[in-house]
């Protein structure tokens, strides 16, 4: 236990060049029509963000809403007294969202949602925050509107981690660990290296992340605090140091180590730094993910000849195989409902994202692209992000957990991969 190398570094995040661009590829048949009218702005100069378009894009990405084009709006009310419901009824708009942004040292976003047919206000809200967080305030408004109209908590005001790679043949490739809003906006570089960076994972408090970096010419697991920028090398074992996964209480980190000969699953207590071995098998055991109660882990093992998903009870070590559908299943993780398991499944020569209901053992393949991997579910369980290939480039794509909605988030340049969707975040 004394062999850990502690590396404390102050890593400042800096803005990035390559922005993700969203392209919706598949939506639902009957999305709810909603008009998000441009918000009034009161403050110095021009409005720093088009809050209404951020909200409209959020709702559209969910696939459950069809925002009305601004050119089709007969009036542009920003207060209740300016609303004429007939303007919206004639164009078959079901819901109307209006609002105002008050600027200054801090920003306030106020909004009101109306049911056009009932001619009544459904909900209203107001969020305040720092000027740089205006987009996040817009996402919070989206969350409230989404929850009011669908009954499901919104997950727009969340973040994603991913890895962006500039592949070069003449010079070393550059690997960047990125942090962005859930819509790909406000990208920041958290860490950059000429050696591979992979497997980013969120602590449940949304403040600490773990990932694997090869910066020492060998793999090691690092922890990085997003608020302070403090970075620490957590492991330095011989062989593999990979697949970090935080326990639901945030006190432990499951990981893959091969220091004892073969890749096995271990759990490190993050306070005492004590290590506990969970699996003991000559096959490959890797990609641990926690069950909601923190008492057992899902993991990938090829102990049956090919990779399949197993569940191990941490206390007893009792292990059970969970996947029998398809010759090759790997990298399982669990949605917040505790029963929807997402994973990578090989079918024919393709790799797709599949979901398995652990209570009913029902399996559904969600994606039809090729070489799909790294599925990560939004904290509300509605959508999942994954990495895939588009043309010859690595991109991120999203699909609703029922498979009905699909969109792509290709980067303007380079390859992007390994998305990790944050938990719900506190107030900005």
């Amino acid at each position, binding site marked *: 236990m004394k062999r850990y190398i502690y590396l404390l570094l102050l890593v400042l995040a800096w803005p990035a060049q390559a922005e993700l661009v969203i392209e919706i590829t598949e939506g639902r048949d009957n999305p709810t029509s909603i008009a998000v009218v441009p918000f009034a702005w009161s403050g110095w100069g021009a409005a720093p963000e088009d809050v209404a378009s951020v909200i409209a894009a959020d709702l559209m990405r969910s696939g459950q809403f069809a925002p009305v084009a601004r050119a089709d709006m007969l009036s542009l009310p920003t207060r209740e007294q300016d609303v004429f419901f007939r303007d919206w009824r004639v164009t078959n708009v079901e819901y109307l969202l209006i609002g105002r942004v008050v600027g200054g040292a801090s920003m306030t976003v106020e909004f009101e949602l109306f049911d056009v047919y009932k001619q009544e206000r459904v909900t209203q809200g107001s969020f305040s925050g720092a000027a740089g967080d205006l987009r996040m305030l817009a996402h919070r408004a989206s969350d409230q509107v989404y929850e009011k109209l669908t009954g499901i908590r919104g997950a727009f005001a969340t973040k994603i981690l991913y890895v962006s790679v500039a*592949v070069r043949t003449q010079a070393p*490739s550059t690997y960047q660990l990125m942090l962005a809003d859930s819509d790909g906006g406000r990208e920041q570089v958290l860490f950059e290296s000429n050696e*591979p960076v*992979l*497997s980013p994972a969120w602590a449940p408090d949304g403040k600490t992340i773990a990932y694997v970096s*090869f910066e020492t*010419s*060998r*793999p090691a697991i690092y922890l990085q605090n997003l608020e302070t920028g403090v970075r620490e090398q957590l492991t330095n074992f011989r*062989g*593999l140091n*990979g*697949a970090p996964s935080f326990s639901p209480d945030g006190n432990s980190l499951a990981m*893959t180590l*091969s220091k004892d000969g073969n*890749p096995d699953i271990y759990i490190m207590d993050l306070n005492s730094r004590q290590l506990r071995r969970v699996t003991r098998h000559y096959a*490959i055991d*890797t*990609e641990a993910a926690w069950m909601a109660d923190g008492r057992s882990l899902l993991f*990938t093992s*090829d102990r049956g000849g*090919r*990779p399949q998903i197993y569940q191990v009870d941490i206390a007893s070590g009792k292990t059970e195989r969970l996947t029998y559908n398809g010759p*090759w299943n*790997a*990298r399982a993780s669990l949605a917040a409902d505790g029963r929807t398991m997402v994973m*990578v499944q*090989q079918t024919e020569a393709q*790799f797709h994202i599949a979901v398995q209901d652990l209570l009913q053992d029902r399996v559904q393949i969600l994606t039809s692209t*090729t*070489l799909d*991997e*790294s599925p990560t579910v939004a904290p509300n369980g509605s959508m999942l992000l994954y990495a895939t*290939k588009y043309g*010859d480039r690595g991109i991120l794509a999203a699909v609703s957990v029922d498979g009905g909605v699909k969109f792509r988030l290709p980067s303007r340049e380079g390859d992007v*991969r*390994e998305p990790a969707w944050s938990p719900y975040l506190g107030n900005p």
Partner: protein
Amino acid sequence: MKQFTVAGKVLSVMFALIWMVGCAGTDVTETDGATSADQERRQMEADEAAKRQAAEAAAAAKKAQMALEAAVDSAGNIVYFDFDKSTLTAATRRVLDAHIALAKTTKKNVRLEGHTDERGTREYNMALGERRAKAVADYMSVNGVASYRVETVSYGEERPAMSGSGEAAWSKNRRVEIK
């Protein structure tokens, strides 16, 4: 490291030579009837012979070393694998045998970097790359290369040798690089 070995051989031949010269000297002082011209001639002949022997031994060692290096050069530094496999084929073993023969003449450490193609998940591929590197390491150790000299590291699918999708690229990426 191999220069040291050659130098080592030259050095040991030189020690032998010094010993021989020493013996010759001793002989000379004990031989009463010999003239000084005779002594000088015999001395020179012995020197020449020793030099020739040393040069021949060094040349032979160098030639043997160069043959081992040439064998490694023609075998290459990369061995390849089938999808999701870490089995060493006959061709792979031939390549490794060349490296093992050379490694036995040196003290140089060997770094084995395991890689996979892009199919499958990244962390599983990290483990698969390690399994490939270890399969090579085990083969080297069984055949006489001390295991403490062999280091393995897996890069999984993170560092493809050839970009692009399809068997042409994939077959080049499922590999262990010997460094």
